[in-house]
């Protein structure tokens, strides 16, 4: 607990924590500004199209894109930076030389960062809901009560299922930063893996299109799979996010989800969620094994 409390203090006092949270919130704010302006334009033209757009739980999907989609990418960079800086600033040396268990230290760091990311996710959802109402107020669009009917349950499902995905994506940066002993390397490689997987899955999905043609000739696209590249770290999280109330293929777009959603069968939640948790555990495990073997100079 002492170590976790220390990690929370470090995160709270680090400027990057607030900068990245602000980036996510500003992007979400801009998004709702554009949505509101678009709806105003449509209303001005006399069209009723899009008037119901500020409905829940559909808006949870939009907020989820910032919490888990862009938020996941930011979390990867953030966690890599916070973990890797222990090497860059040489502070890990102090901790190890004081007789702290390396495994305990990393687990406490992971737990501390998980709490920080959880708080960040809650802030984004709270701010997102607030922005929906603000957009409705400013642009005179009716907003449904987010707690009406299954509203609260929908919100809870978004948070409970989205949180492991956020952690798993962040854990990618965690493991890379520990293995490479650098905050910059952790962030850069984390982003590169994210984008690289997105590119790879898109290419592989395109290559698989001829396999769908049989169904296409019969009058529709026949989805195939699930195939192996749907189980890669970023893609698999997308399949969890897709089943969230209000979720859509857009959420998993970071891993070529648009194409995947069209041509590939989705990975069921019963398979996707355990895979996410396994990736999370493996990433932390790899980090602990790596640190236990490392010599600190």
């Amino acid at each position, binding site marked *: 607990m002492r170590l976790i409390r220390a990690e929370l203090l470090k995160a709270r006092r680090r400027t990057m924590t607030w900068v990245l949270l602000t980036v996510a919130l500003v992007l979400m704010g801009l998004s709702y500004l554009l949505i509101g302006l678009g709806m105003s334009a449509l209303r001005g033209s006399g069209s009723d199209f899009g008037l119901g757009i500020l409905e829940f739980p559909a808006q949870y999907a939009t907020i989820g894109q910032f919490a888990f989609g862009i938020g996941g990418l930011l979390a990867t960079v953030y966690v890599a930076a916070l973990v890797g800086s222990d090497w860059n600033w*040489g*502070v890990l040396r102090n901790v*190890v*030389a004081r*007789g702290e268990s390396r495994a305990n230290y990393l687990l406490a760091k992971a737990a501390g960062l998980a709490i920080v990311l959880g708080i960040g996710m809650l802030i984004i959802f709270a701010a997102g809901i607030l922005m929906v109402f603000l957009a409705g107020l400013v642009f005179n669009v009716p907003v449904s009560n987010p707690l009406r009917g299954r509203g609260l349950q929908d919100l809870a499902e978004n948070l409970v299922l989205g949180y492991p995905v956020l952690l798993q994506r962040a854990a990618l940066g965690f493991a890379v930063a520990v293995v490479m002993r650098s905050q910059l390397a952790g962030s850069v490689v984390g982003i590169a893996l994210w984008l690289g997987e997105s590119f790879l899955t898109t290419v592989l999905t395109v290559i698989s299109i001829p396999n769908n043609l049989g169904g296409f000739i019969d009058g529709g696209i026949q989805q195939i799979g699930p195939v192996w590249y749907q189980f890669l770290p970023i893609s698999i999280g997308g399949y969890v996010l897709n089943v969230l109330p209000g979720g859509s293929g857009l959420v998993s777009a970071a891993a070529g989800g648009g194409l995947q959603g069209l041509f590939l069968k989705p990975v069921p939640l019963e398979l996707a969620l355990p895979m996410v948790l396994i990736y999370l555990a493996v990433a932390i495990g790899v980090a602990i094994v790596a640190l236990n073997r490392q010599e600190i100079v």
Partner: protein
Amino acid sequence: MDPLNTAPLPADHFMPRTDAPTPDLAVATRGLMKRYGRQIALTGLDMSVPTGKVYGFLGPNGSGKTTALRLLTGLLRPNAGTISLFGKPYTWHDWTRLFRVGSLIETPSFYPYLSGAENLDVLSASGPPTDKRRIDQVLEYVGMSGRAKSPIQTYSLGMKQRLGIAAAMLSDPDLLLLDEPANGLDPGGMVAMRETLRYFTAELGKTVVISSHLLHEVEMLADVVGIIDHGRLLREGPLHDLLEAAGRVRVRVAPEDMTKAAAVLREFAPDRPLYGVDSGDQAGWFTVGIAPARAAEINRALVGAGIYAAGLEPGSDLESIFLELTGRTGTVAAPPTAEPGPPPMGLPQ
């Protein structure tokens, strides 16, 4: 008097040479070896640090001092050899044994965006349970209470160094390992550090290992010294014994007389190096490798050459022992040649 022996000390000199428990030693290493790839940093280090003493760990740059300290604090794994801490074997996985050790290895490292007090707070969360009140106490020790709430990025090197020493003392350790602790300290800070460490050992019975290249500083502070070079301990023992055993006479002349005096002094020990200091507050001091009983002969010879000694004392200084053992520069000439070249320390010609 024989020249200084550069071989490791004999078994009965100071330390037991076995892997048996070493209860009187805070630190004992035997045959400690460390390689970085093909480069050998330590080639079988046998180091014995008695409990309750200040141990000066001396060596030129790259001699293996920091590597040894890293091994003692579990940052590195030895390729061979054993380490004992407080009389019991210590290995890489016995991390809780380090609860009794405080260390400052290389440069002090902190989170730059946290204040000094916050850094100590964060650090106190790791390792042994540490009372929060101890943070204020150690900040007071090192004279940093006034800047405790300022971010580290606003600290000077000397302030970081003070905070590093405070961090090392945070858990009230029985053994302090300090790597170049005087780096960046102003004269007042060095005096304060010396007094603090003296108090630490003399009053509290704790042990301090100081790795340093500041020989004068170590000479004023250390009870025991170990001199290391090329990863091997060349000499170890109580400082007083080392200085006595060196069998030397120190003589001080006016700096402008140094060249002339060097010619006279060489005659006394033509087969041994002659050391002279030509700058700083020690300028004018020569160390001559002869028995202290012959000090009067030196004085007579100098007077005969028209040079008046400003100081004359038996014994040696740590610097001359260090330079002779490590074979580094600093000798005026040994032995003198017909046409001596420029002296390594820039002695006046």
